[in-house]
């Protein structure tokens, strides 16, 4: 099936859902005035459904936009690929959205024109009310078949000696403008009030320098690490183009080293790594 055919299907489906009044709106993508860039689009009217697009640039994650409306009067329709579905699972386990409030239209994804998609392990949606077309059936689900290592960004840094790592991050965080776009886009950053926004004494100093930015970077990684679904949105939206995905990749890689295969967002019932323990957990603490 071509992308165009898929796009037609999506438009028809969204229009039908709006016509039935089954949902209050449908979250998808539309074109922007920049070629190669799409934006999240809320179909609020049947006739707007034709603005929906599906091409190699429909990259942004739809799921985070569910948190805009946590107590909807009617179901919310949402188009979800593999990555979106992992995000939805996470939102459900974090009690941020309720499954009953969602109508999920699953879109098996053929991979987009984005580096992150090269190491995608989940192209087919995990959770959905309907699938709009045939599943991709695990192309690239096995880690050995990935076109790019799952933890590619972390491994870039790991290849550096310790001193050079410090310098690497010093360089990264010197450029960070603390705009918090990475946080805003992250599907597992769902606090009512982020710790960085709290005034008076708190965990995060307000100085704007590399050291304080670093505290933010590491803290953010720690806050989301064991729940990170590896969608890479943080890196995509960074206006400074900072390679920050490595931080969470490193956490997941470490978890795998400690406790075996680990992937967040696969199951809304699964506990996150730091929310449980095993009596036989490894440590090197003596």
């Amino acid at each position: 099936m071509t992308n165009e055919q898929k796009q037609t299907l999506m438009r028809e489906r969204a229009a039908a859902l709006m016509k039935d009044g089954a949902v209050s709106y449908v979250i998808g993508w539309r074109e922007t005035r920049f070629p190669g860039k799409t934006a999240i689009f809320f179909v609020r009217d049947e006739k707007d459904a034709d603005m929906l697009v599906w091409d190699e640039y429909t990259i942004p994650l739809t799921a985070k936009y569910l948190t805009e409306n946590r107590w909807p009067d009617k179901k919310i329709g949402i188009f979800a690929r593999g990555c979106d579905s992992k995000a939805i699972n996470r939102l459900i386990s974090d009690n941020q959205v309720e499954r009953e409030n969602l109508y999920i239209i699953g879109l098996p994804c053929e991979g987009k024109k984005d580096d992150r998609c090269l190491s995608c392990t989940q192209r087919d949606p995990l959770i959905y009310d309907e699938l709009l077309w045939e599943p991709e059936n695990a192309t690239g689900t096995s880690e050995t078949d990935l076109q790019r290592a799952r933890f590619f960004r972390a491994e870039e840094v790991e290849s550096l000696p310790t001193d050079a790592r410090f310098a690497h991050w010093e360089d990264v965080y010197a450029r960070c403008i603390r705009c918090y776009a990475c946080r805003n886009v992250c599907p597992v950053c769902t606090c009512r009030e982020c710790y960085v926004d709290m005034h008076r004494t708190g965990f995060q100093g307000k100085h704007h320098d590399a050291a304080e930015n670093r505290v933010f970077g590491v803290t953010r990684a720690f806050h989301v690490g064991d729940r990170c679904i590896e969608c890479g949105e943080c890196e995509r939206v960074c206006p400074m183009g900072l390679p920050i995905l490595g931080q969470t990749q490193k956490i997941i890689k470490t978890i795998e080293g400690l406790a075996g295969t680990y992937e967040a967002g696969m199951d809304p019932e699964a506990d996150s790594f730091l929310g449980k323990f095993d009596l036989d957990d490894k440590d090197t603490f003596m």
Partner: protein
Amino acid sequence: MAVDYEPKIIAFCCNWCTYTGADLAGLNRMKYPENVRVVRVPCSGRVNPQFILRAFRRGADGVMVCGCHPGDCHYSTGNYFTRRRFMLMRELLEFNGIDPRRFHARWISGSEAAKFRDTVTEVTQLIRSLGK
């Protein structure tokens, strides 16, 4: 490196095991270097990794987190969470270019005064050797 470099090390110690062990070291008049400052917390599970970040941010030369041995936690399971959190934290610090020898987690029970003394002594020497 100056010979008289005295590192400042901060140690988060749980009230029931390590802090008690440290008290016992005092009671037995054991001697160890002055470089470690202890912050008393109810449980090593109370230690937020962000405390460690704050300490390094402020200029700590080394940070320690000490609690009861796994299985001995006064609150039964606190230190199991400590273990997970700080196994991750240590890796993440190293990943961020912070020498892992500057961060130590240790299980020290209320009776292990000698272990407290030895750990403080070792960690101080190690960090002194690393320099500023």
